[in-house]
């Protein structure tokens, strides 16, 4: 059923979608925001909406179990340089309660007692278009998690998820990143980035995440993306290395 839905969505986007003033962007790692009225999403991507030029809202289908809202605000632009701020508020308790349920992937123990908690992520981005259609982006951010109590908070130490949920076990998680995006001809976009998370929940804890992806612009409204992310990290058990190949389909309206 999900395959049929994806195929129909793809066909609809190719043949019925209205022509876009700009080609597909789907760029979440730079300061670029979607044009006003534009919606972009992917099978594994959040839904992004250009509220107006310079302000982009996004959320994820996981919102059903992990209520969340993100805003990216491009507040500075001069020549080839621009800056943006990203804020994201989420309420992960329903998701964690779900993961602690019987048969839910075995990620958390069934006896987990998840307290009430909010997670606030804030990032500052600075992008330079150092050559035509080649973007270089620096970022720095912090996550905090105001909560009633840390008592019973489960440790979700699954690869790649750990850096994103570690804030639930500590006061703050800091991160920095460097990203590069470039158009290769008219139809391909290459993206490479590296993120570094500082995880004070572990002594000397960190997660270094390089990623590489190639996006193929199939049509004005549809793209395919494939790539891999890697993780070299100090988790509570010690040093670990993981990788995650992925493939995704992206759509725009």
């Amino acid at each position, binding site marked *: 059923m999900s395959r049929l839905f994806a195929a129909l969505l793809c066909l609809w986007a190719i043949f019925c979608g209205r022509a876009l003033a700009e080609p597909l962007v789907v760029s979440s790692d730079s300061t670029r925001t979607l044009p006003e009225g534009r919606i972009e999403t992917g099978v594994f991507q959040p839904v992004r909406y250009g509220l107006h030029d310079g302000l982009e809202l996004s959320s994820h289908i996981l919102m059903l179990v992990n209520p969340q809202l993100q805003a990216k605000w491009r507040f500075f632009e001069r020549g080839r340089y621009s800056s943006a701020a990203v804020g994201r508020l989420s309420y992960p308790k329903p998701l964690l309660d779900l993961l602690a349920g019987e048969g839910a992937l075995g990620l958390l123990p069934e006896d987990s007692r998840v307290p009430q908690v909010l997670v606030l992520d804030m990032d500052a981005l600075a992008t330079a278009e150092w050559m035509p259609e080649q973007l270089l982006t620096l970022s720095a951010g912090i996550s905090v998690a105001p909560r009633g109590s840390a008592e019973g908070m489960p440790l979700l130490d699954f690869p790649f998820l750990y850096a994103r949920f570690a804030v639930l076990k500590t006061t703050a998680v800091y991160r920095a990143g460097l990203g590069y995006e470039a158009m290769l001809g008219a139809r391909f976009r290459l993206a490479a980035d590296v993120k570094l998370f500082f995880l004070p929940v572990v002594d000397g804890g960190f997660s270094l995440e390089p990623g590489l992806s*190639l996006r193929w612009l199939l049509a004005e409204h549809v793209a395919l993306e494939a790539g891999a992310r890697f993780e070299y990290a100090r988790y509570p*058990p010690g040093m670990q290395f993981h990788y995650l190949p992925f493939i995704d389909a992206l759509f725009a309206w």
Partner: protein
Amino acid sequence: MILASFVRVLLLCTLALCACDPFHVEFDKIEPAERYQAGELSAAPAAPTQLKVMTWNVKFGGGRIDFFFDCFGDRVLMSKAEVVANLEAIAAKIRQVDPDLVFLQEVDINSKRGAFVNQLQWLLDHTDLNHGAYGSQWRADFVPSDGLGAMDDGNAILSRWPLRDATRLALPLRSDQDALTRYFYLRRNILRAHLELAEREIALVATHTDAYGDDGTKLRHIEAFEAELDALRDDGALVIGGGDLNTLPPGSDKQHDFPDAVCTDEDFIADDYRAEAEWLAGLYGSYAPAVALEDYQADNAAHFTHTVDGRGFWNRKLDYLFTSGQWQPDSALTHQDQARGGMETMPLSDHAPLSAVLELP
């Protein structure tokens, strides 16, 4: 053209990545064991005339917490305070027995369920044992089952004297599981090490055989254990072997329907040993058991070492010590409680320790 190249590169990358071991669960067939040493070394006699040997499945320092797999509770993870409290009791028992050599099973060295306490190092640092060797039987960056998460649990040999050539020998995997379950499941092993005392070569062999398989894996493990003992003995070493063999001695009165068997999940049922009645006959025939078969058969209950129900009492014997040498007569003791061992052991683990004194020729 470009698309074809892209797809080809993507497939190759995916195959290359998938051929790896993403959660780092696998071992070589034969690989060096991990070596440990106590933070402060205790004095060890240079030329002992006897060795006190002990074997104990310490249940990852879980004491009598009711874990989900015992089917008496739903606990999965322990706090560090719980683990340390249980380890203190285990160390107290080891100090009380004062062994020269200890075979331990189910020692967690870096597991989420054990609050990432290195239990082997902790026990070395809190007993008079100085050196250790470790062979992991269950290691994974993450076990996606019941919230277990990161896991590193295995067999250990602890000794007053330095161990040599400590080696982990892989045992066959179960064949009655689907590929995904088997990938994350236990990888049993034989842990072998050598000890040189007064110019006498002593070979130490510890194991923990399969418990729940329905495909003969346990028998293959017992046969491999016996073959390893045979090979070392034939090479001229004085052999000491032991561990949790997960089966009953020949001639056990009760072989099924144990009162503590409350699990309905087939993954955790180990309650019927009737088909295994003679699986240990070879070991009993070739080696001196710490508890002689006639002693056991005369009074099974005095030598029971296991129950999963912490509110009950030991109801079967699963733990063994064998040697190619000779045990001191009447030195074997199954430490069941205050009366038989000088300390209550029911609260410490789901297994009771077994000790015996070996005469050195």
